[in-house]
């Protein structure tokens, strides 16, 4: 059924990456009868192959190829070669994600207008509004089965949620519930309901959590118009003299270079790999890389203002049982500069198993202050802070000057400095979260530093004007009509919300645009 396409077939749409953006775009196009080849750098592991073990699962799924982290963020010190915790496998990071599916707020599409000009920030309004995206948000929520939409009930609250809720109530927060989650609270779309297993990050072994791996991709394959080619690492996008892209060079499973010809290329390799590929595709015609006339490719790297707070109680919690992120406080997501920063943040339940807690609670720490925290692991509750960070031109992905990967492609340098606004927001969130747990009787709490980035955004930003960004409001590059960006690197700004729902919505919208332009013979 999954049609294998010939390397010389130049009528296909080639999509690089099979995650939230690429996997969704691939299926949407296939449903419209358009032939698609998805090149996926990682292997294909079906959900029964996932492993309920943090380190073993990390070895199975994570993108472990060497990267360099630089800048003043603590990740650069703690994890100098692991700036991001994302996936290299069919399904991309929708295998690993926790399922939180929130729409952006209206003002988050207009950050320059709403927040005004901020020193050392490169704020810009999106070329689309919430109203433009609302119909696509609705389709994405239906497709993904997001709880609290489409009449789908919320997930039941686990122990970690109950502690969060009790604290939120005591603090007077009004909007606290088990979230809008793309995790089935009841059987839907041929997938079963959540069994509260507690290993959302390791890939859902029940298939209860939406992932392109077992939704979009098999649905697309069933049309006969979609081929997913695993273990295929894109290294260069080729173009002709007119500047149109013509194909993608990739290393196949044996490391041999192949070229898949293409009518259209869509880049969806996450916000580190997508700009890396565009930059590495430089040529005499495009010496600074493809689609980079603005000089913005790789810039404005965002990763959300994050952090965690864990707290110990005098009685057991067992936070690791059940859906990891089914718990949210939304009251701080508003824009309210009286708090000392622009933008807002969400508080979402989070738990790590003992092995990852040891690695991430306070990386590098040792001695009794650290170990007595772990001694009370089963008495811990935890949450994750996810807030809007400021786009900055110098926070960027660049090609490393010397180091190359096994295919001879320069490795990515991921540079990030916290903006003063990020720091102020994080400190506010730490204080509120510790107060929340104090209110329920925490005996000790831990403002835990950010983990390697899971939300990588903004490095091929959308802009009205070609000089301000890389792609237009459809994700089409300003410079090259048949080259698209289809992942979170399109984001003009990051919002306070987990990005997957917005990536999926943009992909559905982009598929309509591409189909229309193909039919009109514009591309």
């Amino acid at each position: 059924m999954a049609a294998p396409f010939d390397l010389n077939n130049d009528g296909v749409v080639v999509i690089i990456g099979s995650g939230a953006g690429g996997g969704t775009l691939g299926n949407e196009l296939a449903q419209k009868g358009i032939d698609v080849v998805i090149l996926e750098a990682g292997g294909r592991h079906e959900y029964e192959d996932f492993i309920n073990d943090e380190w073993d699962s990390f070895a199975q799924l994570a993108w472990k190829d060497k990267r360099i982290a630089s800048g003043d963020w603590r990740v650069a010190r703690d994890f100098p070669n692991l700036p991001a915790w994302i996936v290299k496998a069919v399904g991309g990071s929708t295998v690993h994600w926790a399922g939180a599916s929130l729409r952006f707020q209206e003002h988050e599409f207009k950050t320059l207008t709403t927040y005004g000009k901020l020193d050392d920030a490169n704020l810009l309004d999106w070329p689309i509004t919430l109203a433009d995206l609302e119909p696509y948000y609705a389709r994405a929520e239906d497709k993904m089965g997001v709880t609290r939409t489409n009449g789908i009930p919320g997930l039941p609250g686990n122990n970690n949620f109950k502690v969060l809720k009790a604290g939120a109530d005591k603090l007077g927060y009004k909007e606290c519930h088990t979230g809008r989650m793309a995790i089935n609270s009841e059987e839907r779309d041929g997938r079963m309901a959540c069994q509260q297993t507690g290993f959302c990050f390791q890939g859902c072994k029940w298939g209860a959590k939406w992932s392109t791996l077992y939704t979009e991709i098999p649905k697309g394959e069933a049309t006969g118009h979609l081929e997913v080619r695993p273990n295929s690492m894109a290294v260069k996008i080729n173009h002709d003299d007119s500047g149109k892209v013509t194909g993608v060079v990739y290393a196949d499973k044996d490391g041999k270079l192949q070229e898949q010809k293409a009518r259209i290329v869509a880049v969806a390799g996450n916000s580190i790999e997508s700009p890396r590929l565009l930059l590495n595709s430089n040529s005499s015609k495009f010496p600074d890389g493809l689609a980079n006339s603005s000089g913005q490719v790789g810039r404005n790297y965002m990763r959300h203002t994050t952090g965690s707070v864990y707290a110990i109680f005098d009685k057991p919690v067992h936070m690791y049982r059940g859906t990891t992120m089914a718990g949210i406080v939304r009251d701080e997501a508003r824009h309210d500069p009286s708090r000392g920063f622009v933008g807002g943040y969400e508080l979402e339940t989070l738990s790590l198993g003992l092995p990852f807690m040891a690695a991430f609670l306070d990386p590098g720490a040792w001695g009794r202050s650290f170990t007595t925290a772990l001694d009370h692991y089963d008495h811990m509750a935890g949450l994750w802070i996810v807030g809007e960070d400021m786009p900055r031109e110098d926070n960027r992905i660049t090609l490393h000057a010397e180091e190359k990967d096994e295919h001879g492609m320069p490795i990515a340098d991921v540079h990030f400095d916290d903006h003063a606004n990020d720091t102020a927001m994080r400190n506010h969130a730490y204080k509120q979260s510790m107060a929340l747990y104090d209110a329920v009787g925490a005996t000790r709490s831990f403002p835990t530093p950010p983990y390697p980035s899971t939300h990588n955004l903004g490095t091929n930003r959308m802009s009205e004007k070609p000089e301000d960004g890389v792609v237009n409001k459809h994700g089409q590059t300003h410079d090259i009509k048949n080259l698209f960006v289809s992942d979170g690197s399109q984001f003009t700004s990051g919002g306070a919300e987990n990005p997957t729902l917005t990536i999926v919505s943009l992909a559905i919208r982009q598929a309509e645009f591409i189909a229309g332009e193909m039919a009109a013979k514009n591309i």
Partner: protein
Amino acid sequence: MVTIYDGKPGPSRREILKRGGIGALLVITGGAVISPQHAWGIEPLALKPQTMATLIQMARDIYPHDQLADKFYAIAVKTHDEQAAKDPAYKELIENGIADLDRKAGENGYSGLGWEDERVAVLKQIDTTPFFQTIRGGLVVGLYNQKEIWPVFGYEGESYSKGGYIERGFDDIEWL
């Protein structure tokens, strides 16, 4: 191979007295480090037995959990011996690191310091060195990824084969 084996009969009390103990727990005898109380031993491949014993003490001082037996720290540091057997430079890093630790600790060496605080004070003098960071970094996975210790911390590990927690207490908190 470094072997860590259970059930090895410990040396006689007289032998322990004759050879001297490491703290109250570990005994060096011949080419091995023995825990007579807990009936296990370790025979290093490349490192000196004394070095191995000091490494075990050092591991406990870095990540002290009083409820964990020495055996788990021994398992956590044995990879350094395996690596030392393959790589002379690595062996030197570890042996020199321990020798330096002993020197800084005074005439009875690192393991001769009776209080954890005294040993920690010595560790703080070296905590930015590659030696210390190698040992500490290795422990993060080497110690905490041992499934046998998870129940001690109340972590239940894999749950899929048991049907998740939907019928097993995902929401059983009662004290709120």
